[in-house]
């Protein structure tokens, strides 16, 4: 069945680094694929769409977002297709022990293609400030499980994320580089965000061990372990990495973009290779807002319009090795297209420290097509509080719990019995990750008895506690709930009055 209409985008400035194109020309889309770019007569029956004054490019790729886990969103599409992004990568939400949950919950669920850049911690990012940088939170490097996942789900994992944080030292960075080589994906190294972490010069080890094609995120941060020396000069270790072909990804985020650092780096020949947003619960309402906002910031910094567009299309497509399906308007490619325009006005762009710069133009996505299908744009959709604030419904039973069927309630009853035999205390200061893994094992055991698919089992456990469909590693989710409340709520939902009374 034909699911897309054929159309021609006419009158826009086409920017496509994959073919060296920059000029006003037509983009012809037939059967959801690019049928040609240039001066074409519109095929018969083709809809003609006037995009005069607009920029037409391959669909934008956001190399670093958070869709899953404690930093994710109830509606991951809200930071994807609704913002004009047609492909994106979850940067570290899951780890190898939660990749199955990531795939079960988000695989094929978003309009934009969603890839994973899992974290080296098996649990993935946990979002607990004090625990995140603790070397003991890196609970294992299970090589067989990584290889098994790569075999079972080819193409899902696009890079391996590691952070230079806290008490890690250089060891985990080198181990992560080794693991990235084993599973044959680029290393994605996070620097910056040292505000609550002990500053550790081992961050520079990331620059040393990264090879051509590996990526370093947050290069323009202004925390300890930055790319400039005390006099503002680019450190040789950073310049050497750039010269070797290591890619620098803006990953704007909440903490990691400084006008001062960025301007000094640009003046010394260190433009970014990739522009990404690092959108997460904490920054969708500012200062990151959207990939288009971050593109506007980089335009203001001094990148040219073609450079900015390449940094969200062809550059990340190559880095992610998805250049056979994204980032290009070559004939035969899936018709992932973003149409944007530069809006003139008086704007103020804040960096992540609140330092402002005036700007006179900004990117606004106006149309987006995924495999030739149009999708509406709404940049503000992600800012709805229900979308970014993960809240446990402590004072009421969410509506989703009322809709659970007998089989699902039976599963919850068994889970409740199993959890009653397991003891834990939610400790703010010492998050017990081993216990989180143990709770995941309890969940798995009960699920096996009930023969419930993973996706259904996860949603069944979320239902009594969440009004909005957030995702979180299930072991961490259970650990995060206070045990008496958890048991009581499961009683209330499953109708286990004898225990509840």
């Amino acid at each position, binding site marked *: 069945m034909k699911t897309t209409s054929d159309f021609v985008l006419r009158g826009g400035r086409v920017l496509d680094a994959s073919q060296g194109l920059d000029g006003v020309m037509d983009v012809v889309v037939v059967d959801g694929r690019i049928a040609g770019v240039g001066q074409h007569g519109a095929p018969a029956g083709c809809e003609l769409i006037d995009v005069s004054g607009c920029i037409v490019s391959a669909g934008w790729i956001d190399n670093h977002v958070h869709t899953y886990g404690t930093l994710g969103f109830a509606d991951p599409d809200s930071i994807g297709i609704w913002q004009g992004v047609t492909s994106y990568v979850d940067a570290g939400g899951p780890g190898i022990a939660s990749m199955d949950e990531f795939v079960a919950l988000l695989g094929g669920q978003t309009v934009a293609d969603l890839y994973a850049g899992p974290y080296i911690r098996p649990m993935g990012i946990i979002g607990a400030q004090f*625990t995140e940088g603790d070397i003991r939170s890196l609970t294992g490097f299970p090589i067989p499980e990584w290889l098994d996942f790569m075999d079972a789900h080819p193409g899902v994992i696009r890079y391996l994320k590691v952070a230079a944080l806290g008490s890690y030292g250089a060891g985990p960075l080198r181990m992560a580089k080794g693991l990235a080589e084993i599973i044959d994906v680029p290393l994605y190294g996070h620097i910056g965000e040292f*505000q609550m972490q002990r500053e550790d010069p081992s961050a520079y080890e990331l620059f040393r061990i990264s090879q051509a094609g590996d990526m370093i995120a947050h290069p323009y941060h202004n925390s300890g372990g930055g790319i400039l020396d005390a006099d503002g000069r680019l450190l040789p270790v950073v310049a050497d990495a750039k010269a070797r072909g290591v890619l620098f990804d803006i990953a704007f985020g909440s903490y990691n973009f400084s006008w001062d650092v960025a301007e000094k780096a640009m003046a010394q020949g260190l433009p970014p290779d990739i522009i990404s947003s690092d959108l997460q619960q904490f920054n969708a309402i500012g200062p990151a807002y959207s990939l288009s906002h971050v593109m506007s910031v980089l335009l203001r910094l001094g990148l040219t319009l073609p450079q900015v567009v390449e940094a969200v299309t062809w550059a990340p497509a190559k880095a992610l090795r998805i250049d056979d399906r994204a980032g290009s308007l070559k004939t035969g490619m899936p018709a992932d297209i973003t149409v944007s325009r530069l809006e003139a006005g008086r704007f103020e762009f804040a960096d992540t420290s609140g330092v402002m710069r005036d700007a006179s133009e900004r990117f606004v996505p106006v149309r987006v097509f995924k495999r030739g299908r149009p999708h509406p744009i709404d940049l503000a959709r992600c800012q709805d*509080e229900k979308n970014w604030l993960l809240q446990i419904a402590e004072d009421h039973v969410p509506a989703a719990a009322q809709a659970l069927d007998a089989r699902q309630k039976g599963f919850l009853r068994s889970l409740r019995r199993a959890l009653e035999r397991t003891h834990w205390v939610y400790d703010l200061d010492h998050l017990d990750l081993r216990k989180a893994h143990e709770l995941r094992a309890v969940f798995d055991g009960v699920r096996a008895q009930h023969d419930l698919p993973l996706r259904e089992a996860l949603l069944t456990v979320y239902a009594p506690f969440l009004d909005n469909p957030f995702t979180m590693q299930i072991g961490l989710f259970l650990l995060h709930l206070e045990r008496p409340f958890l048991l009581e709520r499961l009683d209330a939902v499953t109708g286990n009055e004898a225990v509840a009374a």
Partner: protein
Amino acid sequence: MSTDATWRTVDAVDPATSSFPALVRLGDERVIILRTPKGYRGVEPRCPHLQAALTTAVQMSNGSMLRCTRHNFIFRLSDGKGVNCVGLRLKVYEVRESEDGRLEVQI
């Protein structure tokens, strides 16, 4: 709640005329007093994350939570527990209105 906590009268704030949030000094302590739909509540003056001033913090969810505008860390006003930031806790204070219409903070 600490048993040796005492109620301290806030002389600098008049519920009828003052604007909220109000930053007050009580001995060595500084407290921001918020007016919420459920009554008054006190919080420490700076966010436990990175010490941003909470005088510009925003109430959410019908005044049950407070959002620091610096990095959008959110705290439950009932007990200070971090909502989206496990591992952090905001210091919160009971605030009551005395019979003669003055505010008292339990320190």
